[in-house]
Structures are given as C-alpha cells and as structure tokens.
C-alpha cells in the first residue's frame, strides 16, 4: 500500500493531462481552473493524511530512487499550497485567457517537478524533477506573449537557468565519478569512508552543485536573474517562482548538500556564513532602493534566501543546533512562501485598478480604494518583516535561535539587524497604503484574489498564534533528514 504515498504526484500528472485534453473539447475554459483547484485539494489531503512516514521504496520498481519522509512531505505541502494559491488567483488573472488549458498544465507539471525534487533520493530523479519544474516555469514566465518585459524576464530566466542546469549536471557527474553511485544515501556512506582520497574533486563537485542550486535559491552571486524575471513575469507566476520554485532549490540543497557536507566533514561554515550574510545584506539594501513593488519583493526574497542560508552555516558548524536550524529553515521556507505568494497576488489585485501595478505610487491610499486587499497585504508584509504574532515572526525566531545555539553570535547579530533593516521597505508600502492619498474611488475587489490571500493570511495568523503542531512536524522532519 505504500505506493499510495506517491498518489499526490500521480494525481497531479493525470489531472494535468486531463486538463490539456479537456481544453480541446470544452468552450467554457474557466471550468479548468476549478478542476485544477479540486485536484490540488485532493493531492494536499493525500499528503496531509500521511505526514509522519518514512518509506524508502527499496527494490523493484523504484530501487530506492525516491524516499517519502516527513521532510519531503513538509515541502510537498508547501509546493501544493503555493500551487493552490496560484491557481485560485489565476481564476481571475487568466479567467478569460484562451490558452488556460496549457497554463494549468504547465503549473501542474512545475509543481510535480518540485515535488519530485522533494522526494528524490537519487541524483538522476532529482535532476529530472529540477528540469521538469524549470522547463515549465520558463514557459510560464513568458506566458503573457505580448509583454516585452515578460519576454525579457523569461529569456533571462531561461538562459541563467539553462546554464545552472548544465553546471548542476556537471557537478552530479563528478560526484558520480567519485562514488560510482547516484543514490544520495549510498553516496553519503561512500564519501564518509573515502573522503580523504577524493577531497579536491569532492570540493569541486560540491561547488558546482551548490552553484546549480544557488541559481534556483537566488543566493548571491547567482541572483541576477531574479529581479528582472519576477518583475517581468505575470504576477501569479512571480508568486509561483518566488514561493515554489525557489524553495525547490532549498529542498534540493538540504537533501544533497548537507548530507554530503556532513559526510565529508568540511569545515565550511565560514564560507556559508559569508554567503548568507552577503545574500541577506545585498537583498535588503537593494530592496530599499526599489521603486517597483515587484522588484522590492524580488530583492526581499533574495534577503530571505539569505536568512534560510543561515541554516547551512549552522548545520556545518554545530551538530547540536542542526535540528533547530533545519526545522527553522523549513518553516521559514513555508512562511516566506505563503507571505510572498500572497504579496504577489496582492500586486496582481492592484493590477485590476492600475495597469502599472508595481509602481510604489500606485499603492497610495489602497486602504481606502481596496481595503480588503490592503489589509491582507499588510498582514503578509508584517509576516515578511517578522513582526509578531505572524508565522513569519515565529520562523525567524527559530532560525535566529539556531544561530545562537551554534554560538555563531556575529552571524546572529547581522541577521537580526538585517531583519530590522528590512522593516523599512515593508513599512514603506504599508505607509503608502494607509496614509497616501487615494487616487480613485473604492473599487470592487476580485473574489478570486481575495480568497487566495485570505487562505494564506489565515494560515499565517493561525500558525503564528499556535505554531506548536507545525513546529513539531518540522523538528521531526529535520530529525529524519539529519539522522
């Protein structure tokens, strides 16, 4: 019965094909959106129903190529929730688009790819999942074919992404060359036993793999594509990229990199700490300078990638703080995904009022013109800023706590000061919304956008007030990976 654990992926794949086929026959294509939402809900329930599992699928037919454990399930929930929010918002954004069938197909394939990465225990499976998600998001980023910015963003994303795939594949081939296996756990055991013999090649392989994942995670210096792509893409796709695709990079990095790192026992914590510090600082400083909300959110997610990268430094440095760090990182990935996805959806909602939906001036007086959107966006920005009692506060709390637990006080100080700095640019949007002069009368807000945002806000606030269950899940999941 353990194959049931793969049912969510199978549901997504079959429904994606179904959607494509249905699109050929039905006229009222908006129905496809509802079909997709229903399918995502089913998949989400299937994952939630089997949270605390560990199934390695030894022997025929998978030969340990995938492993469904609580860590994978945690990220599967993240990916499915993000896809759900994106699909609900798309009911409005692409409600009248004639190629909706292709759109939902691509979103589903991208989500399946991300989920494959989360359950991969084999570098080939991982790479396939990575490419599945990448290829479909390249197409999605340029889905508004008439938009010049969209084309530019998609092109940049494609070129950088293609390069990163090549680099990643080269790293994987080197790792395979050393160890003779593509199975991650076997590779870990091999490296632990023979690290000394292959040290230089192992370092090279790891650097290349890190670069490959780094592009997806948008860690500095692999972040250049992110602001242009997020700005140019349709807002709902920016949500998918920032909330879903980016977290795929993290789950892959945690799966592969940390295990190998622990095995090789490289004392690389300093390199990781510097990487985290540069990423968060650059992201925050550049975010302050932006006049476009979408670019601001792009740089803010670079900064958040920096916060999550603290976990790498902590795990590399101290084994007794590793569990807290990994749990904090996983939870922060979730809180950032929820918040940034709904912030991008809010940008899409502003697009209904003004054609140029990302200029900061157009948020003036949004508290009057679109009060629900403004209120929901405010909660999400506060969550991104880490102000209690939101989930974003709790996750930063755990993440920074892990830095103290590792006794990396300098890293912790820089991280909290960065977080304090970031309050500035989030608060600036809130200020515009609540004490800027409204430019138009009160408008009717789209139910689809509002529903998507309300779902995210309710989850964020409930988890912020009562984080115990998710916290226990995340700690358990972290233990499963580190063991």
């Amino acid at each position: 019965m353990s194959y049931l654990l793969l049912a969510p992926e199978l549901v997504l794949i079959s429904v994606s094909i179904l959607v494509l086929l249905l699109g050929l026959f039905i006229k009222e294509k908006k129905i496809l959106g509802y079909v997709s939402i229903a399918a995502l809900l089913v998949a989400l329930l299937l994952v939630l129903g089997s949270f605390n599992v560990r199934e390695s699928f030894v022997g025929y037919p998978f030969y340990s190529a995938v492993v469904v454990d609580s860590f994978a399930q945690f990220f599967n929930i993240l990916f499915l929730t993000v896809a759900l929010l994106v699909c609900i918002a798309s009911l409005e954004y692409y409600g009248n688009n004639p190629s909706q069938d292709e759109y939902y197909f691509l979103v589903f394939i991208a989500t399946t790819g991300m989920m494959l990465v989360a359950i991969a225990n084999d570098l080939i499976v991982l790479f396939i999942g990575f490419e599945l998600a990448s290829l479909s998001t390249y197409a999605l980023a340029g889905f508004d074919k008439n938009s010049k910015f969209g084309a530019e963003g998609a092109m940049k994303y494609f070129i950088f992404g293609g390069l990163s795939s090549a680099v990643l594949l080269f790293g994987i081939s080197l790792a395979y060359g050393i160890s003779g296996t593509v199975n991650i756990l076997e590779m870990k055991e091999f490296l632990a036993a023979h690290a000394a013999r292959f040290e230089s090649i192992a370092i090279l392989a790891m650097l290349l793999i890190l670069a490959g994942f780094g592009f997806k995670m948008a860690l500095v210096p692999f972040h250049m594509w992110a602001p242009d792509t997020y700005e140019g893409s349709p807002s709902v796709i920016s949500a998918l990229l920032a909330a879903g695709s980016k977290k795929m990079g993290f789950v892959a990095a945690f799966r592969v990199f940390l295990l190998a790192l622990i095995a090789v026992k490289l004392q690389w914590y300093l390199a990781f700490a510097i990487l985290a510090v540069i990423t968060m600082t650059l992201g925050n400083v550049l975010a302050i300078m932006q006049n476009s909300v979408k670019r601001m959110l792009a740089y803010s997610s670079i900064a958040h990638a920096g916060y999550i990268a603290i976990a790498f430094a902590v795990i590399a440095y101290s084994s007794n703080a590793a569990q807290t760090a990994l749990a904090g990182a996983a939870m922060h990935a979730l809180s950032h995904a929820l918040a940034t996805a709904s912030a991008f959806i809010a940008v899409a909602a502003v697009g209904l009022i003004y054609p140029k939906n990302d200029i900061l001036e157009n948020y003036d007086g949004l508290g009057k013109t679109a009060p629900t959107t403004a209120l929901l966006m405010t909660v999400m920005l506060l969550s991104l800023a880490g102000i209690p009692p939101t989930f974003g506060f709790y996750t930063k709390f755990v993440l920074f706590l892990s830095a103290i637990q590792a006794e990396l006080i300098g890293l912790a100080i820089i991280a909290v000061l960065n977080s304090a700095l970031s309050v500035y640019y989030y608060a600036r949007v809130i200020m515009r919304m609540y004490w800027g002069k409204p430019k138009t009368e009160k408008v009717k807000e789209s139910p689809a956008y509002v529903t998507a945002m309300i779902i995210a806000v309710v989850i964020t606030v409930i988890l912020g007030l009562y984080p115990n269950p998710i916290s226990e899940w995340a700690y358990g999941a972290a233990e499963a990976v580190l063991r």
Partner: protein
Amino acid sequence: MTISLMLAILLLGSIAAFLSRTREQARTAAVVSSWTALIISIFMFLNYEPSKGLNNFREFYSWIPSIGISYHVGVDGVSLPMVLLTAIISALCTIYAWEEKRRSNQFFALILVMDFSLTGVFVSLDFFLFYIFWELVLIPMFFIIGIWGGPRKDYSAIKFLIYTHVASVVMLLGIFAMYYFHGKTTGAYTFDIPVLLSAYQTLPLAPLWREFIFAALLFGFLVKMPAVPFHTWLPDAHVEAPTVGSILLAGVLLKMGGYGLFRFLIPMIPNASHLFIYAIALFGLVSILYTPVAAFTQPDIKKLIAFSSIGHMGFISLGVAAFMASGEEVPRIFAASGAMFQLFAHGIITSVLFGSAGIIEHHTGTRIIQNLGGLAKKMPKFAFLIILGFLASMGFPGMAGFVAEFSVLAGSYPQLPYIIIIALLSIPLSIGYHLWAIQRAVFGAYNERLGSVTDVTWYEFAAMAAWVLLIITLGLHPAPLFEMMRSSAVQFINILPPGGIAP
C-alpha cells in the same frame, strides 16, 4: 483567569471598534472595554497579596511545548501598578479623544490595541509571550503616528519603528542566549522568565556571553526609556504624533523600558559585570543633565515636554542603579520604590502635559511658545490644569512627582553620592525651563494674533481633571501604591547578595 479576561475584553473591544460603522459605535466599544479593563485592574489592585509575589493572578498554560514556550502570566508589585497605569491612561484617553473626527473607528481600535499589548507586556512571564507583546506595541503606535500625525509623520513613524525595532531584536538575541545556555546546562529548554532569571545567576557562562546577554537586554530597555544618547527617536515621534498618541507613548510606552530594568536586570546583575551598575547610573545622570539644556532651546512646547520625559526617566535608571549598588538596605529599598513610583507618577503627569499641549494646538492652532501668550485670560480652566501639570512635572511638593524623585534622590545618595550631587544641579534648571515656558505661554498679555480662542471642552476637562486629581491624591497619600512597590523592592533585595554589589 482575571488577566486573560482583561486581555480578551480589550482585544474584543478593539475588533468591535474596528468593525463599527460610526464614531458613536466605535467610541462606545472603546469606552466600555477600556473602562471594564480599568475596573478589573482596580479589582486586582485591591486583591493583591504582597506575600505571594508573582503568584498573584498567575496563569500557566502550555503553548508551544516543542521549544519550551508557555502562556504564563502573573503580576507582582512592580507590574501591577504598571497594569493599573496602562488601564487608567487608556481609559482616560478614550474620553480625551471623544470627538476624534478622522477615521474614528480605526483610531479607537488602535487605542485599544495599544492598551491590550501594553498590558500584555507587563503581565507576561514567558519571554516569547513578552516579546510578542513588546513588538506588538510598535504596530498601533506606528499607525497612530502615521495616519493622524503632523507634517513629517512619514519620517517620524518609520524612525520610531526601525529604531525601537532594532533595540528589540538585539534584546531578543540576549533572550536566545539565555534560553540556549540554560537549556544546555540543565537540559530543560524553556522561555519561562522566572526560571531563566533565577538560573542566570548560577549559569556557568563564558564572560563574553554573560556580558553580552546583560548588555543586549540593557540596550533594549535603554532605547525604549529612552536614555540619552539613544533618545533621538522620541522627540520626532512626539512632535508628529497626535495628542493621544503622545500620551500613550510617554505615559505608558516609555515605562516598558523602566519596567524591564526592574523585572529583568535587577535579578541578573549579580552574575553580570558590576560596571553595568555605573553604566546604568551614568545613563540616568546624562539623561537628567541633558534634558534641561535641550528643553530650554525648544520653541515647540510639545517638544519641550518630550524632552522633559527623558529627564524624568533618568531618575528611574538612577534609582535602579542605587538599588543594585552596595550600601544599607533601607536607602536602597527607598531608592527602588521611588523609581517604581516614578514610573507611575510620570505616566500620569506626562499625560497632563501632553494633554495640555494637545489642547493648546487644538484651540489656538499653534504649539510654538513664542506665538502663544496670555492663554490664562481666555482659557482659565485650561490654565488651572496646565499649571498644576507643570508644577507636578518640576517636582512640586504635595504632588506625585515630588514623592518619586525625592525618594530616588534621598535613597540613592548613600550609595552614589557624587552622581546624586551632580544630578541635583538639574533641579533648578528643570524648574527654570518649566516656569519659563509656562510664563511665556500662559501668563502675560494675551497675544491678539491668536484671535478668539475657546476654553477646554467638557471631555478634555474631564480627562485632564481626572489625571490632575490623581497626581494630587498620590502626592498627598502615596502610601497604598508606595507600599505595594516597597514590598516588591523588599523581595528583590533578597535576590541580590546581602549589602548590595560592591564595584
């Protein structure tokens, strides 16, 4: 359940006010819930048992057991007067803001959110809970300054938010370190405040970490109080904030810093570097001396009042330092009780002062002292109130401020003689700027350019008179409140080594 009930009423009241359609509905929600909270806090005050200490009205529920967080609240002789102060000031603020015209439902809702989160700060006995309330206070104040503020509100609101948020996150790191080292040593990871504070004294810590923890918390509190040189956010915030915002800011929000010194730093000092005692005393001294110098040069009466707050808060640092320093028990307890009393007294006095500044601005259209003059002729009721407020602020005997500052100075002198002698220099200066300001604004010939001004409205008068009455009552009969504080000071002194801490 009493404390939770109070918090729940305030939260529900703020939601009701936010959702209401008219000003009358919002005001009713605000008045009913804030006055109910006041009644509950008076009930708590009357039923307080000094011998039980923090066990008064204690509640403990597990909340996030996976990392040792609980919902733990309770009050003692330090926090209960603060809860009462919050309730009094918020309740009177709802009266003072009776006819708020702009976005009145949001305004009343934010007052209640402030009331809720400030009360939460003072009752929390779990660091996580405490920090949530501590940060939550910033959000309504940010909106109050930003939406109802003056011309430079954008700058002031964001400066207030970032400056105090930086201090909070630094404090949070100190909390993390305490949590981690306690868990590492004992195996029990918890954010419980009483447990961590008592454990801090015996934790085997590296010197760097020991001093870091203390300094991080101290920094968080000094910025909030604020102590010179971390005070620069305060005058800006006050100048731009609406009157009720200023009252809540100076009356209660600053008290969070002073409260923090008592709740956290006094139990921690035995294990920290003893130089911190002198650091705290010096921060207090500098604030006391700097204030009159800055206040003399202010053309804006509200900014002058804002600076006066900084000086008054300096007495609290001074009293805390004198309590920690080595000396006889009696004067140390006296100093500490005086400092606690100052927390309460200054909250009430500053409400009158900022209330007066608000009335001046509202009725004459300006706050610049030079453009005022002779207000007593046109606004006799107002003149009566503002004079009493200014007298209380300069420490006139028979009023609450005198009791507090006299106790601090008298109780601190044996431990810190030189510092107190220097601090005394500020008293004539302080009297000077108070009198000079009031002489120019209220007395003399009426400035005809102001046109015709009206005297205070009934709701302004009611709120201000209530505060003034409290000042005089506490000045003449401080015993009930003072005794409660003294009982807490006695409990604190047993935490410290006998005879205090020698340098």
